[in-house]
């Protein structure tokens, strides 16, 4: 498909990130970089391709089919939300996209790479490089400062300590928390903690940001601020997928994917359709 063009455009960009931190933030800080991307390619490029994904949990003698053949394409640079009632399989779907769980059948391509039958170590490696997670309960390490939390994914890339601490500070600055770098999570408000978590998700320059109910623990004002941050990140070109059950949160995304009983009910619902 468009994979050759894809790599031709993106590889040099990614490499820069690892070698010089001054080039680490062009996506977010210099919007002119993004303008160089031809719109035509961007819109047609599939970041996530799911083909007939099936997943079942076996409990004793019964088998619970959670995902019953999911076909889904999410384009690079998308800002999508996955909605569905509890038990619809949206968490399982998110786990599969996030390489946290395996699927029984089908194919999953992430940025053209087949994600299938990975060892735990390979899965860890892909999670570290390709996925940025944001969770409902923030999941910051309580004994590490905001800066150390943001730097942690780079520890697993074996990046030099000094370098990753500097980068972490830049990303904290990006989410407006540079002054809070030395604070422990319990010294931060919920909204601040979630912004630290977003900085942590962004620092590896992943292909996709996966957010699981990111505003679930926040009040509406803070929720709005966090969503604004996601919007900003998305405007800079990052693919963002949010799992939520809140309509007003979903309404802030550009695409809504509705799940029901393990199948996609509506792959491209609009806000008006939800109302």
């Amino acid at each position, binding site marked *: 498909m468009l994979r050759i063009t894809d790599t031709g455009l993106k590889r040099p960009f990614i490499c820069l990130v*690892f*070698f010089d931190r001054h080039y680490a933030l062009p996506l977010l800080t210099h919007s002119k970089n993004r303008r160089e991307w031809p719109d035509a390619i961007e819109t047609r490029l599939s970041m996530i391709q799911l083909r007939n994904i099936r997943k079942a949990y076996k409990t004793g003698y019964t088998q619970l089919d959670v995902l019953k053949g999911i076909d889904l394409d999410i384009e690079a640079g998308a800002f999508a939300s996955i909605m569905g009632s509890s038990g619809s399989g949206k*968490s399982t779907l998110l*786990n599969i996209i*996030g390489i*946290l*769980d395996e699927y029984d059948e089908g194919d999953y391509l992430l940025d053209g790479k087949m994600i299938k039958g990975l060892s*735990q*170590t390979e899965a*860890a*490696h892909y*999670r*570290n*490089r390709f996925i940025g*997670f944001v*969770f409902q*309960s923030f*999941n*910051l*390490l309580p*004994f*590490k400062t905001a800066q*150390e939390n943001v730097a*942690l*994914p780079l*520890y*697993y*890339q*074996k*990046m*030099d*300590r000094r370098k990753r601490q500097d980068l972490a500070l830049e990303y904290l600055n990006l989410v407006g928390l540079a002054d809070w770098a030395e604070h422990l999570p319990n010294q931060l408000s919920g909204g601040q903690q979630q912004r630290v978590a977003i900085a*942590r998700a962004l620092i*590896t320059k992943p292909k996709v940001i996966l957010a699981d109910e990111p505003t679930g623990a926040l009040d509406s004002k803070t929720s709005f601020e966090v969503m604004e941050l996601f919007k900003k990140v998305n405007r800079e070109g990052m693919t963002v997928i949010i799992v939520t059950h809140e309509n007003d949160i979903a309404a802030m995304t550009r695409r809504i994917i509705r799940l029901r009983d393990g199948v996609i009910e509506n792959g491209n619902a609009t806000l008006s359709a939800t109302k």
Partner: protein
Amino acid sequence: MTRLYLSPMIDFDKWQEIFNSIRRHPLRTTLTALGVFWGIFMLVLLLGAGRGLQNGVEYEFRDDATNSVWIRRGVTSIPYQGLPKGRRIKFTNEDYDMLAEHFGEVDQITGRFYLSGDQTISYGKTALSYSVRAVHPGHRYLENTIMESGRYINETDLSEFRKVAVIGAVVQKDLFGDEPPLGKEIKIGGTVYTVVGTYTDTGGDDEMRIIYIPVSTAQKIYAGTRELHQLMFTTRDMELPAIQQLQEEVRDAFARRHQFDVQDRKALYIFGAAEEYQKFMNLFAAIRAFVWFVGLGSIVAGVIGVSNIMLIVVKDRTREIGIRKALGATPRSIVAMILQESILITSVAGYLGLLAGVGAISLMESIAVEYFRNPRVDLGVGLSATLVLVLAGALAGLMPARKAAQINPVVAMREGG
């Protein structure tokens, strides 16, 4: 290229991560460390104290020959062949001769003749009071007397009733100071003796405040009898049962000579140092066994303690493990992180326990108590015990850490707060 350049930094970074985790979890670190510290500390203390006790008692015995047999007179408590009870048994030179002639197993023999009370000893203008023992030449071997100069009492002294004296180091210092004492004349009571030898004794100062003179001279001058107050002998190299057998034979011979019932334990007292020594040796074997039992017990308790803590630590870190995994930690790095932290904490704690134990033992050493001497601990034992605890901690942590590292991060992150 970048990887290669950074590789020396990686280990340093890893340890920094571990130190950071240790520093930020003081309670968890303390709990893990405490079990190991205490186990090793108690083990070292126990082994050291046990050794000190043994050394102490062995030291108390060093004064007297451990193969000596002491015979003391008593009063009959059973009527025997028409003789009433309440008779006082008296030893004479013939008893000494009998021991020498009839018992081949007897090595060195001596009688003792005590001068009543302490005697005034004078040299020049100095006059002091010491105890005087009149003995046979064999006495030297019974008391482990160490000759420093001159000679001990000999057979010729006895047969010629010479007025010679062998003085202890304390007597020498008190009477003569720096003056050489050999050949000098001292007065014991009213009688003049020539000093022919000086000695020291491992039994301490009290044993060196004694003056030895020939038993025959004392009998003639102070009592005009052939009486002896006490008899002692050493046995040749013999096992305890043979010594006990010999003691019974000696008792038999004395019963016949002095006409008392051989069953009459109050007529004659025979005391075997070997028997006593053996009793102590048995006691030590028991104490050693007990010390090891308690020591191993404290190690087992330490192992259980560390294992429990490790289970709790892993449980406590499940959420952290989930987060780290979601951020890209491999299961291997998770297990390594937990084990390295545990090994670091337990090793340092074990080492500190060892240091504290050795320190406490040094303190005990400085306290002079009877029957306690030179507490020492085999450092090898302490180090092996530390190693056992470190390995136990690592093994106890390995299973749950492996399990936790396999849990789906999403599930792990739901655990606990």
